[in-house]
C-alpha cells in the first residue's frame, strides 16, 4: 500500500482546495451561490505574482496584495450580485470567472496567455499556516453577530430584513471577504507552481469549488472542509489504484475516475441533498461538549421579569395618515388612517382582500409607501427600507411563518436582540421562555405553532415601539390561542403598541383595546370592541360571520 499523503503536490492541493472551499463558504453562507470564485483566485494569483516578480515583495505583503486585489475586483461584483437572485446570480458570477480569464489572457502587462513565471517558491508549510489562520478567522466570523446575520439571510432574505439585518451590506461584505480569502489561496497556488497562466483558472475550477461546499454541506464550517478533503482524496486514490497492485480492470486513472466521481455526486445528492454534514449531524457529534457548555451558561439564561419598555404617554406610537396602495390597477388600500398609542392593542379586522396584510407590509417597509405618511413616535418612516424601520422600532411577523430554519431558537432570538440598538433590551432568558421551545433546537425541527412563537419572540426581541402581528393564531388550537392571548397582553404591559391582524374574531375582540375595521381599503369603523360589535355598517360589511363564530 502506498500513502498518498507522502506526495507533496497532493498535500498542497488538498490544503489549497480546503482554503478555496472556505472562501466559497463565506460567500454562500449568505445564500449567494457564486461561481466567480476561480476569477477571484486568478486575480489574487496574478496580483501576488506581479508584486513578487516585478517588485520583489516578500511573502506576507504578497498575500496581502493578493487579498486586496481580489477584494477590489469583488466590490463591483458584489454590488451587481445584489441586484439579482437565484440562478441569475449563479450565471452572472460564472460570467465573472470567464471575463477575468479572457481579460488576463489579453493583458500583456501580466504575460498574456503565457502568464507570469519565476515567483519565489512557497509550499505546504505556508499553505498549512494560512489555512489554520483562515479556519480560525472564519470560525470566529461565523460565530459573531455578523455571521449570525449571514446565516439568517441564507434561510430567508426578506425575514432577515424584517429582523433588522441590512441584507445588502451583509451580502456585499460576504462576497468581498470570501473573494479576499480566495485571492490569498490563488497567490499561494501561484507560488507553489512558480508559474501562473490564465487557463489554470477556468470555469471548471469554479464548479469544483462549488462542489466542495455543496457536497460537504453549507450549514457548518466543517462541511466545506470535509467536502474538499474527501473529494480531493477520493480522486487521488482513484488515480493511483494501479499502484495498490490491483488488476488492470481497476485502473481508475482519468477519465474513469471523474465518471466515478460524477456517479458519487449523484448518489450523495440523492441521499443527503443538503450535503454530507448537515448542521444537525455536526451538532449531534458535538453534543457531549455542548451539554457541558450549557451547564456553565445555565445561570446566564435564568429568566428575569423584564422591566417596562415604554410608558403610555399622550403621544402616538404609530400614526398612519392617508395611506393608499395599488397593485397595478387593483386598489388594495384606498385611504387608511389610524393611530396607536404605546401599551395599546389595536386589532385590524376585515374580510379577505380588505387590505390588512398590505397595510402591514406598507408600515413594515416591505412594500413602498405610495401615498400618505407614516410616523413612528415623531420620526417619519417615509421611504426607509424594512431593516431600518425594525431598528427604529417597528417589528413584524409574517402571515406564513418565517423563522430561520437552520438557526437555533436561541440564535433566532439573539438576531432580534441585535435590532434593539440603543433601546432597553429584554432579557434573553425571558425571550426564550416566550418561545416555549428549547433554545438549542433548530427552528426547522419545531412544529408550526412553536415556530410562530419563535417568530414572535424574535420580533419582540428588538424592543419595538410597534409590533405588527399578521395572523399569529393561524393553525393554533384553543389552548394555544389562549397562551397567545396571554403573551400579547404581556407585551402590551411592557408598553409595546401591538397591531393585530387575525382571522379569529374572538381573539381580536377579546384582547384588543380598540378595533379598526377595513373594507376594500377604507376604514369603515373604529372603536372599542363592544361598540364594533354593535355597529350596523360593520355587521353588514363583515361581522355577519362574527355572530356565528362568537
Amino acid at each position, binding site marked *: 500500500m502506498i500513502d498518498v499523503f507522502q506526495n507533496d503536490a497532493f498535500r498542497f492541493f488538498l490544503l489549497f482546495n480546503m482554503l478555496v472551499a472556505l472562501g466559497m463558504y463565506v460567500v454562500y453562507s449568505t445564500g449567494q*451561490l457564486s461561481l466567480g470564485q476561480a476569477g477571484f483566485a486568478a486575480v489574487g494569483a496574478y496580483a501576488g505574482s506581479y508584486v513578487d516578480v516585478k517588485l520583489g515583495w516578500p511573502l506576507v505583503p504578497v498575500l496581502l496584495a493578493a487579498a486586496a486585489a481580489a477584494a477590489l475586483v469583488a466590490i463591483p461584483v458584489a454590488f*451587481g450580485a445584489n*441586484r*439579482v*437572485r*437565484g*440562478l*441569475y446570480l449563479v*450565471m*452572472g458570477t*460564472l*460570467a*465573472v470567472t*470567464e*471575463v477575468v480569464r*479572457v*481579460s488576463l*489572457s*489579453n493583458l500583456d502587462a501580466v504575460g498574456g*496567455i503565457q502568464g507570469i513565471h519565476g515567483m519565489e517558491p512557497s509550499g505546504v508549510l505556508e499553505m498549512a499556516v494560512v489555512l489554520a489562520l483562515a479556519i480560525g478567522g472564519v470560525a470566529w466570523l461565523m460565530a459573531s453577530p455578523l455571521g449570525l446575520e449571514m446565516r439568517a439571510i441564507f434561510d430567508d432574505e426578506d425575514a432577515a430584513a424584517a429582523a433588522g439585518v441590512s441584507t445588502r451590506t451583509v451580502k456585499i461584505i460576504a462576497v468581498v471577504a470570501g473573494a479576499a480569502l480566495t485571492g490569498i489561496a490563488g497567490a499561494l497556488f501561484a507560488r507553489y507552481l512558480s508559474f501562473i497562466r490564465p487557463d489554470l483558472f477556468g*470555469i*471548471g475550477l469554479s*464548479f469544483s469549488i462549488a*462542489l466542495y461546499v*455543496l*457536497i460537504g454541506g453549507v450549514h457548518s464550517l466543517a462541511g466545506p472542509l470535509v467536502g474538499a478533503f474527501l473529494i480531493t482524496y477520493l480522486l487521488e486514490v482513484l488515480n493511483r489504484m494501479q499502484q495498490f497492485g490491483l488488476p488492470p480492470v481497476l485502473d481508475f486513472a*482519468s*477519465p*474513469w*475516475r*471523474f*465518471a466515478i*466521481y*460524477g*456517479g*458519487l*455526486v*449523484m*448518489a450523495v*445528492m*440523492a441521499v443527503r*441533498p*443538503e450535503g454530507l454534514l448537515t448542521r444537525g449531524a455536526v451538532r449531534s457529534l458535538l453534543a457531549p461538549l455542548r451539554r457541558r457548555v450549557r451547564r456553565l451558561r445555565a445561570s446566564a439564561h435564568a429568566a428575569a421579569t423584564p422591566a417596562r419598555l415604554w410608558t403610555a404617554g399622550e403621544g402616538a406610537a404609530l400614526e398612519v395618515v392617508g395611506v393608499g396602495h395599488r397593485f397595478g390597477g387593483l386598489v388594495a388600500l384606498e385611504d387608511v388612517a389610524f393611530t396607536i398609542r404605546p401599551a395599546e392593542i389595536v386589532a385590524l379586522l376585515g374580510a379577505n382582500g380588505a387590505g390588512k396584510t398590505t397595510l402591514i407590509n406598507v408600515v413594515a417597509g416591505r412594500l413602498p409607501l405610495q401615498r400618505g405618511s407614516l410616523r413612528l413616535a415623531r420620526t417619519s418612516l417615509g421611504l426607509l427600507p424594512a431593516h431600518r424601520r425594525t431598528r427604529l422600532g417597528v417589528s413584524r411577523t409574517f402571515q406564513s411563518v418565517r423563522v430561520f430554519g437552520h438557526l437555533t431558537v436561541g440564535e433566532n432570538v439573539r438576531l432580534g436582540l441585535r435590532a434593539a440598538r440603543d433601546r432597553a433590551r429584554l432579557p434573553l432568558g425571558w425571550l426564550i421562555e416566550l418561545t416555549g421551545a428549547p433554545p438549542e433546537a433548530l427552528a426547522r425541527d419545531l412544529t408550526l405553532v412553536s415556530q410562530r412563537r419563535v417568530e414572535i419572540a424574535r420580533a419582540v426581541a428588538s424592543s419595538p415601539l410597534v409590533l405588527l402581528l399578521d395572523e399569529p393564531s393561524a393553525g393554533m388550537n384553543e389552548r394555544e390561542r389562549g397562551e397567545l392571548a396571554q403573551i400579547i397582553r404581556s407585551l402590551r404591559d411592557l408598553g409595546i403598541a401591538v397591531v393585530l391582524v387575525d382571522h379569529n374574531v374572538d381573539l381580536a375582540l377579546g384582547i384588543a383595546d380598540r378595533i379598526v375595521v377595513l373594507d376594500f381599503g377604507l376604514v369603515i369603523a373604529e372603536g372599542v370592541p363592544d361598540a364594533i360589535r354593535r355597529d350596523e355598517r360593520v355587521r353588514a360589511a363583515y361581522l355577519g360571520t362574527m355572530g356565528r363564530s362568537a
Partner: protein
Amino acid sequence: MTELAQTLLNGLLLGANYALLALSYTLVFGVLRLLTLAHGQIFMAAGLVALVAADRQGLPLIVTGLVAIVVGASLGVATDLFAFRPVGLGRPIAAAVATIGFALVIENTALQLRGSSTAVALREPLPAPDLVLGPFLLSTVQLFILAIAAVVMVATNAFVDRSRWGMAMRALAESPRLLPLLGIPVGRITVLTLAISGALAGLASFLVALRNGSVSPLAGTDIGLVGLAIMTIGGLGSLPGAMVAGIGLGIVEAFASSIGVGTFQSAVPWLLLVLILLVRPHGILGKPE
C-alpha cells in the same frame, strides 16, 4: 453589402443552433423549475454517437440526424430518472448538483471510449454554397438548417402553448403539488419534458455537426454553458426569450468575429449576459419570481 449580409447569415445560422439549445434548457427550467447542467454533455454525446454510427454503418444524413435526436432524448430521460427523481422536485440546488454529476459521467465515459483528441468527422463533405437568395449566398445544407430550426422552434412553442400535454407542463410549472390531486401523472410529464428537451439538444448538435463537419468529446462543457447563458439572457423559463437571445447572440458573435475581437470572442456571451443582467435583472423576457 454582401459581406454584411454574409455576416448576418452566419449569425443567423449560429443563432438558430443556439436558440434550439437554449430552448432545451428553458423547457426544463420553465416546467420543472430545475436547472440541468448535463445538457452540454448530452449535446456532445448525441452528436458523437450519431457521427460514429454514420461513419461505421454508412448512414444517410437524415438517419444520422434521427440517431442524434433519439440519443439526446434518451439521455434527457436518463437525466430525469437518475439525477432529478432521486433528489425530488423541491430541492433545486441538490438537483442541479446531481446533474453536474451526470454530466461528469457522460463526458468522461465519452472520453474513455473515444479519447480526448479524436473529433469525429462527418463522412460526407459539406456542400459548397450553391444558392443565391438576394444578397445571401448559401448552401442547401445551410438553408436546411435554418428551415429545420425554424419549424422545430415554432412546433415546440405551439406544443407547449396549445396541446393537452403542453397545458399539463405549464400547470406543473405553476403548482407542482396540485397536479397529483387532479389525477395528472407528474412522472410522465417530467419524463416527456426531459425527452423533448434532450431531443432538441440532440437536434441542435446534429445541425452544428452539419455546419462544422465534426464533433469532439470535449465540446460539451463550453457549448452547454453558452446555452445556459442564453437562457439566462432571454429570461429564465421564457421560450420566446430563449429564441430571441439565441438568435441575438448568434448575430452579435458573428459581427464580433467579423470585426475581429481576437481571444475576447469566447467572452462575448458572458459580457452580453453581464450587461443584460445589469439592465434587466430578470433577462430580456423573464418575469420576476
